[in-house]
């Protein structure tokens, strides 16, 4: 089933937001990503057709943004911040813990298709590093115990109470 068959009205709504058709590219790519966790070639070709772009132009945008996945990802997409602030407080060790726990390095997916690990650039939670984002949720001030608990909770229940959402300054009372 093509995107426009499935999300016809939503696509029309997105297109109506922008005076220039091409501007709707990223929202449409997000829509396509929502479909299967990643953007398929067929989806890119379809989006190119909708926006009157050539497929390479869509591909160019899709490869530029690390938030857009071009390969299938697990149910839980772990994105560990590797930028300077988090690196200073030990983002490497976080990746190390996850690797020890799940046996996957950055860019890899576990055999059961549950977890995918990626190292990403700054997620704008520099005050609360080391931190990671799993799907849409932030997990901050990570410690080894916290990572263990997060991964165990996600595996068993599919969600974890440690998710914080980006902290604003000043920091609210700590939870967990």
């Amino acid at each position, binding site marked *: 089933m093509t995107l426009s068959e499935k999300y016809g009205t939503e696509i029309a709504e997105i297109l109506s937001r922008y005076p220039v058709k091409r501007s709707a590219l990223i929202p449409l790519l997000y829509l396509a990503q929502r479909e299967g966790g990643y953007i398929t*070639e067929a989806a*890119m070709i379809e989006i*190119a*057709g909708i926006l*009157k*772009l*050539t*497929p*390479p*132009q869509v*591909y*160019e945008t899709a*490869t*530029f943004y*690390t938030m857009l996945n071009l390969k299938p990802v697990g149910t839980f997409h772990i994105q560990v911040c590797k930028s300077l602030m988090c690196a200073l407080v030990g983002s490497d060790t976080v990746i190390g813990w996850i690797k020890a726990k799940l046996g996957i390095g950055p860019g890899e997916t576990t055999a059961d298709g549950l977890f995918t690990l990626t190292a990403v650039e700054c997620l704008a939670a520099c005050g609360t590093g080391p931190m990671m984002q799993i799907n849409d949720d932030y997990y901050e001030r990570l410690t080894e115990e916290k990572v263990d608990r997060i991964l165990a909770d996600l595996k068993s229940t599919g969600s974890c109470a440690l998710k914080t959402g980006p902290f604003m300054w000043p920091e609210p009372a700590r939870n967990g």
Partner: protein
Amino acid sequence: MPESKTDSVRLTIDGIPVTVPKGTLVIEAARRVGVMIPHFCYHPKLKPDANCRMCLVEVEKMPKLQTSCSTVATEGMAVRTATTVVNDAHKSVLEFILANHPLDCPVCDQGGRCDLQDFSHQYTATASRFVETKRIFQKEYFSPLIETQMNRCVQCLRCVRYCDEVMDVKALAPAGRGTMTEIKTFGTHELDCEFCGGCVQICPVGAITSRLSMYEYRPWMLKRADTVCQFCGDGCQITVQTKDNELIEVNSEYGAGRNSGDLCARGFFGFRATGHPDRLTKPLIRRNGALVETTWEEALEYTAQQIARIKNAHGAQAFGGLISGRCTNEELYLFQKFMRLAIGTNNLDSSARYGHMNGVQAMRRVQGTHRWTLSFEEIVQADVLLLVGTNVTETNPITGLKVKEAVKKRQARLFTIESIRPAIGTISNITNLVDQHVCALPTQFGGAVLALLKAVVESRLVDQRLQHESPDYVGAVTQALERLSWPELEAATGAARDTFVQMATGLAQGRRVVVLAGQELLRSAGGYGSCLLLLDLLLLTGKLTEPGCGFAPLAEENNDQGAVESGAVAELLPGGLDLANPEARARIARAWKADLPLAAGATLVEMIDRARSGLVKGMLIVGENPVGSLPTVVGAKEALQRLEFLVCQELFLTETASLAHVVLPAASSLEKAGTFTNQEGHVQAVRPAVDPIGESRPDWEILSALSVLLGTPLEYGDAKELLKEIRGVIPGYGLLGPAPIPPKVDRAAVERYLAGDYRRALAARYTLAGPADAAGGTTHLGLFQSLFHSGKLSTRSKGLLQIEAQAALRINPADAARLALADGDRVRLSNRRGEVTTTVKVLERVPEGSAWFPDHFGQDTAKLFECAIDPDTNVPAFRTASVSIAKIS
């Protein structure tokens, strides 16, 4: 151009004062005074991008270094390019680029002409401070023609920008980010594009190279010859690079020639035909029914003897001649002189007859010129463009680029009447850029122009002065248009009245209106009438005589225009003079010091008819292939078989040449000197790049030798001597300058037309063409020119065959779905005249209900087409037919 004080600025570059027009970039200003600022991403054709940071310069009163490629020169600016700070900046930029650049210059085809190599020698130390492992991209596919080596890429994005801004193809994109940015097409898919070679030419390093000549040369070994492309009427200047008499590559320098350095697939990859093993290297003579190799002496003597025999036995009118529009002006001129003097007949024609004559005769009738009153510059500067039946991307790609430039860079309004649907595809589509588009069948282009005329008249857009000065003409046209009703027109063209009104208003409002008529119009039945209608349109809106406005029929073969101007058509003498005009005849007779034959000559199809009926006994065919080109219904093969004597001068043993009694091997245009006239009427020099293959000789030498043997010596030392004579005969000919000087519209001719000449066949051209050919069938089959092919040369050219090896029928996705067809399926095309089988390619740009078959592969499909002869210009029109399509499982 005089620069007034207000639109120029003065600045100094390294202390050298320079005055440049306002808006000039600093890097260009520096180039003017001979200061070369190193750069990768800047190219004068492209918008500044300033991504490579190589062109940093110091500007006084600016705190930091500026990129000279994006800084506009301002009054009093003081730029310094040779300070330590600048030098250090260049050094560090280069060091970062070289951090990842592989040291494979020895095996890189760009080595020796590489910007990065040159700058490295200029700036950096020999050792790198980076010890880290360099980035490596894995390759996912190999293009047959365009090889990408992304490890060498400096990420200047020139190729991507060229593909988008100039070509409008958008096949390349930078995938990924940062260091790992890679120039790719789409995912792991193979590059499928126009293959214009622009990315190869524009790449400053060796990241994109031509695979066709990969590793066969090093740049310093190449010998170059600047000559003119042999494929279409655009007349692009090409630089042919050869090594040891072998063709290696073709390119075109920035700013060179009429194309200003842009080429198409045919120009860039089509040159290998010249060295094809099928080339004829020795004269052939028919003995016991078979063509066998012989010597030049024997072949020429036998030919002369046979010609003399036919002439003596049956008179000069029993002989006819055909020449290809791919020969040089000198050859075309000598050919017609040979036919008219040595043989004594006007039975001669050239491939301009296939369609170009329609445009030329219309221009002669209405505006009194036989060439454009425009040049490419006027197309670029136009503010309103009307394209009718051009399919310009595929037929005349460089004219297409001029149109794209006008629309994309100069915001011209584009109106098209084409049989193309706007669609994004692997090759660019001019109708994607339109303001208003009418998608009509080629048979209804005339109808669409009529609708446009009707809209002009009804919306009261007729030029006031014309209305005042020639009320008869305006009245007659208005009356003729009143007989047509809108519902009829809308049904025929498939476009609403409003579209035409919009177009008409746009045309009337435009200050510089250019009308381009393409092959599809010129080669369709009623092409002459449609050209007249377009000229009527320009007249009515008052644009015809305005500067910057005009009508431009596009030529298919590179020297169609030259053929007309050299008099290599039955009804015209050199210089576009009318054969029937006694004054013109006297002038040419004076120049030639000999009398011209009086009887009107037979044209292409007439000659074939006469050959069939036995009136024409002998023919001389130079590079033309009527058997392969004309539809079966004309019966060219049977007619030529009946000839007592047929001599062909050919590069290859074509369908026609294989019927000949004598075949003389001719040299290709890369092997001889001469001149070509492009469609603008610009005469450009053709220079030999390689020696003629085998014993082949230039056509003019063969004709000259024959004339001597026939006792009417037309002897010339070289092609230059011929050109000298042509210049004597045709005043003002041979504008071998950088740009043509287009003629002005002849007011006397316009007045003659308005005074009453317009009445001739007025009613006929102001009627809507009937429904298309009724040979049984629902699909409209049209022959169209593929971007990658143009005839016997391209179909023997290695590079082009790698892009498109076989003919495939193009059909619309909707039709394909209806017939359950996919790419590569076999189908049977049939109508009352016959049937053929072919494969299918689904293409979105094809209108529904139409199917396109590439011309030049059309030998099989030739039997499906009817041939209509234009009563005024004798142009055979055979490019449309109706067929039914059935899938073969």
